[in-house]
């Protein structure tokens, strides 16, 4: 299939434009949006089937001139790293459309923005031109701002502005870094594949700018940090994470799912896509503190913060902070197990946390609050709902047979070889995770049923429809992780091989 990635990216965008022309009929708009997300999903399945798992090269590449004067081109392509994210994006977009059927306010605007967001996300993962990457990165930001700011909760404006400004701050650093990389090599280029090939030039370049040149700062470390901060905000790594709980709590359910399921992954994806292969020497130097130690700290810090939360959604948000720590920790290990585990964790976190936010949304739609202490005994009132919740929570806890187990154990196993102490810290996060999740289950689902909610409706068909695909993936990946790992392995090993020669000791 020619240009399949372009279709996947721009069909939603075209759909967004068409929605604006539809009559103002909520039902029509909803189903139209649902239909628009189907072709990308089918194409994702096709990609999954036709992806060559034996090569680390980019596949399904499209390369067109765009702005030749500045050597900017429209280049799309996927490799093992991005394919898993593309699949995740296609799936979550499809599911979240259904999760958004409850939206009543300005339906046309919502779904148009949502599809625009979809296009932006898909583009980020497919773009192989750094300029194009940046364009998609920013394209995604705008709809997100409105989706939180208009359809969000009571403090939506605060949350939306915080999210927007925070991300923009990171984007600016990233843009500067991109331009610095662009101008460092002759002929100037934004093509990521060419930039990766220039890794050695970047590692010897000197920052030409005052005052850094007088301080003797090396180019690659400064650029690495600039890119890292841009991405770390998205991950979100401590201490850049505080936009996340606010944004999550205020965003509507489906947007929280997208936020946690896809947007957070862009941070770690970006680091693996750009920092690792383009600046391998700096990566080797910085990984211990900025990925490893920070990742371990993220795990524990996020878990402790989650434990102290009273708002169910905030708890899930902080659990994301904790779980993304595993990704960082695994990336820092530079072992095949750690790195594959990290990317698998990205995928698994997308599905598991997606489920958790959907589940929180279910109960919020009924009770109109998310206060953990305000429930109790829901297991007796909504048994099916509780069963699905238990599946998601236990997957998040890393119970074997479910996907979270594989990725966490791989990350920790891989990390042990390099950093035993960080592994011990990271593994103790597993205990804390069990602590806060079980405590939550106890407070919300167990105990005597809360009189107030005795008549609460059981989870309905549409909600089950959004949860079941994710649940099935969680189980399949847990039992047969090769489904995902086979796609990742070759690419990640080649990325790893770029950095490994530069590691000390």
């Amino acid at each position, binding site marked *: 299939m020619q240009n399949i990635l372009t279709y996947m990216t721009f069909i939603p965008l075209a759909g967004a434009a068409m929605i604006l022309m539809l009559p103002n009929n909520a039902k029509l708009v909803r189903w139209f949006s649902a239909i628009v997300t189907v072709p990308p999903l089918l194409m994702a399945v096709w990609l999954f089937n036709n992806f060559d798992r034996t090569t680390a090269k980019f596949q399904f590449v499209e390369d067109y001139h765009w702005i030749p004067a500045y050597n900017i081109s429209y280049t799309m392509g996927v490799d093992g790293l991005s394919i898993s994210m593309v699949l995740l994006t296609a799936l979550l977009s499809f599911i979240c459309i259904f999760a958004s059927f409850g939206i009543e306010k300005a339906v046309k605007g919502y779904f148009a923005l949502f599809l625009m967001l979809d296009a932006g996300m898909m583009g980020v993962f497919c773009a192989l031109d750094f300029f194009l990457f940046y364009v998609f990165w920013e394209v995604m930001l705008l709809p997100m701002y409105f989706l939180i700011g208009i359809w969000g909760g009571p403090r939506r404006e605060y949350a939306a502005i915080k999210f927007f400004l925070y991300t923009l701050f990171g984007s600016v650093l990233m843009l500067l870094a991109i331009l610095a990389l662009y101008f460092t090599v002759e002929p100037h280029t934004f093509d990521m594949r060419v930039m990766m090939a220039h890794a050695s030039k970047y590692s010897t370049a000197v920052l030409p700018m005052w005052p850094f040149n007088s301080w003797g700062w090396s180019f690659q470390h400064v650029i690495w940090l600039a890119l890292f901060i841009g991405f770390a905000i998205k991950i979100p790594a401590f201490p850049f994470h505080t936009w996340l709980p606010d944004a999550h709590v205020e965003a509507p359910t489906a947007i929280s799912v997208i936020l946690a399921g896809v947007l957070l992954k862009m941070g770690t994806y970006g680091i693996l896509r750009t920092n690792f292969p383009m600046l391998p020497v700096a990566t080797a130097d910085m990984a211990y503190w900025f990925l490893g130690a920070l990742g371990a700290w993220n795990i524990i810090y996020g878990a402790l913060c989650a434990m102290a939360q009273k708002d169910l959604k905030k708890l899930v948000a902080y659990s994301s902070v904790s779980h993304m720590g595993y990704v960082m920790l695994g990336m820092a290990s530079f072992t095949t197990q750690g790195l594959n585990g990290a990317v698998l964790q990205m995928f698994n976190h997308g599905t598991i946390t997606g489920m958790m936010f959907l589940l929180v949304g279910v109960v919020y739609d009924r009770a109109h609050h998310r206060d953990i202490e305000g429930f109790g005994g829901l297991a007796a009132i909504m048994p099916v709902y509780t069963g699905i919740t238990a599946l998601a929570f236990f997957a998040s806890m890393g119970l074997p047979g479910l996907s979270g187990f594989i990725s966490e154990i791989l990350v920790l196993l891989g990390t042990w070889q390099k950093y035993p102490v960080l592994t011990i810290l990271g593994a103790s996060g597993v205990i804390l995770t069990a*602590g806060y999740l*079980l405590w939550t289950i*106890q407070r919300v689902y167990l105990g005597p049923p809360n009189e107030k909610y005795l008549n609460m409706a059981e989870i309905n068909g549409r909600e089950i429809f959004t949860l079941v695909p994710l649940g099935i993936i969680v189980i399949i990946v847990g039992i047969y992780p090769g489904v995902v790992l086979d796609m990742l392995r070759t690419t990640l090993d080649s990325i790893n091989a770029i950095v490994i020669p530069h590691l000390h000791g």
Partner: protein
Amino acid sequence: MENPIQTDFIRWIVFLPLLGAIVNGLLGAKIQKSLGKGAIGVIACAPVIVAFILAVNGFLTLKGLPPEKRFLIDNLYRWIDLGSLKVDMAFLIDPLSSVMILVVTGIGGLIHIYATGYMHDDKAFWRFFAYLNLFTAAMLTLVLGDSLLLLFVGWEGVGLCSYALIGFWYHDHANARAGNKAFIVNRVGDFGFVLGMFLLFWSLDAQGHASLTFREMVKWAPSIQNMSLWGWPVVTVATMFLFVGATGKSAQIPLFVWLPDAMAGPTPVSALIHAATMVTAGVYMTARMNVFFSMAPATLHLIAWVGVATAVVAATIALTQNDIKKVLAYSTVSQLGYMFIGVGVGGYAAAVFHLMTHAFFKACLFLGSGSVIHAMHHEQDMRKMGGLKQWMPITFATFFISVLAIAGFPPFAGFFSKDEILWLAFTSDHGNKAVWFFALCGAGMTAFYMFRQLFMTFYGKCRADHHTQEHLHESPAVMTMPLVVLAIGAVFVGLIGLPGVLGGSQFAHWLEPVIAGHGESHASHALEWGLMAVSVSVASFGVFVAYLMYRKESLSPDTFVNLAGGVPYRLFNAKWYLDEIYQAVLVEGTLKLARFWSAFDAYIVDGIVNGVAAVVRFVSWLNGLFDTYIIDGLVNALANVTYWAGNRFRRLQTGNINGYLYGIIIAMAAAVYVKIRYWT
């Protein structure tokens, strides 16, 4: 070691109970409504019974092979394949796991049958059996898994099911809390387990033999003999980590606190999970990894002392309990301590033997207590029982046999297994006399508290209220039949592990392919007879004291309660205050830490973010002022001047045409004048 024989029936031992769990879990509510509880019971029990038949088949197949070939493997597919980490989804039957699956499916099957009677009045009958089947599947994965990682899958899986079953009656917060406690304490253990696994994996990897498969690990174990980590031998550190895992799962000091609380679950659960199978997983794991433990004497030493401490501490607590299940719970902790003494002195086979005999008599005791509780309408306080033997003869008889077994009287099963451990503690290279002495004291206490329980429950006058007494009855056959079978086991199963003087242990011999060198000692026969006599007499003394206090009542328990100012009694009765200490230090500590970091997050980290925003806003406000008053001031000033001037000039524009004309004429006249006068 030769290549294992490939088979394809082992998977069904795991899958059948799993299938039962899935069917009952997904469709149970509907089946129960349409077909009744009987169908649920069949769906739940049949897979376990078939699995038992398969397990027997596996055992017989092994028996038909020469000892060095006794490995059956069922390899399904490659589970994880990353770099040097290659883990198969494969199940293994060897002499050790064959014993374990027989115990799990055999005793498990009996308990399933018993539970169909015990749980009959429960509305969530189907849910109970879904959990119970899932547990069986997980436990079988644990013992059949052919790699440490697959063992860990089962290890976590049984923990999950234990959590679900302890909190089965989740309407009561206390039950849910007990489940949480069990899970989280186990997680602490798991934390150690995974680290031990990682360390062994990478150490073997460094030697070029990376594997998590038991056969490979055991084969290459000697290669990591001289490696060290943090100044310790790698094997020592790794086995210490693994033992942390074992203390969690097998309820050893310091992680035993969850087990007594776990009695919140239904009694069949206590029998199956918290006595016969799951809690012995730690013992199984150490036996499985015995080659590594044997390479780490420091760890063995620690294990022996932890085992002794657990055996004695738990026994002291059991002395003072009045809840029929709590006594059994602490007794289980204590007996697990004995198993670890066995491991610690190098007697892995003895430990596994005790594991097996204990599974019989402790399951029988728990089920017997369940029968009593069933009859007493869920009354668990022994002070309200008494004289039950006249109403419940079968329960009494089986209970009595099991008490004799656990107290260590020959020829009952417990005697042989416990005595083997004591004997090894006294004589083996890793053992010592102090360990033996304390273990012996523990044995005496065991005899005392078990007979105390027997007397309080079944003898004397009934202290129950009138209403309960009227309804006292023997349990139905579906419950008593398993009791009888288990009691028969408690009598005879010890005979396969006779001490050296009586012909040597068949059991240890059977395990030899897996557990090489099961702590043989070469002391004299006279010593062996002598030690047996000592342990029997100590047990008898315990029984005698119990008889005086609770049967003849010539010796008041208060003598002991008030001993040494009552300090020991209060300490024992309060479970050595361990729960309180953990609650205050660990739980509250973690929560405080959580609140602190959360506040830190909200006020410091987010404060900085919001602070930056506030500073930016302040600067922009200042800038706004500058803009309004300085920059815009200048612009406005210019405009104002223009406006003012325009205003002045406007006066000239009167709109009076005559005026304009006069102006024109005067100007023209002036122009003409100037032209004529000056420019000619």
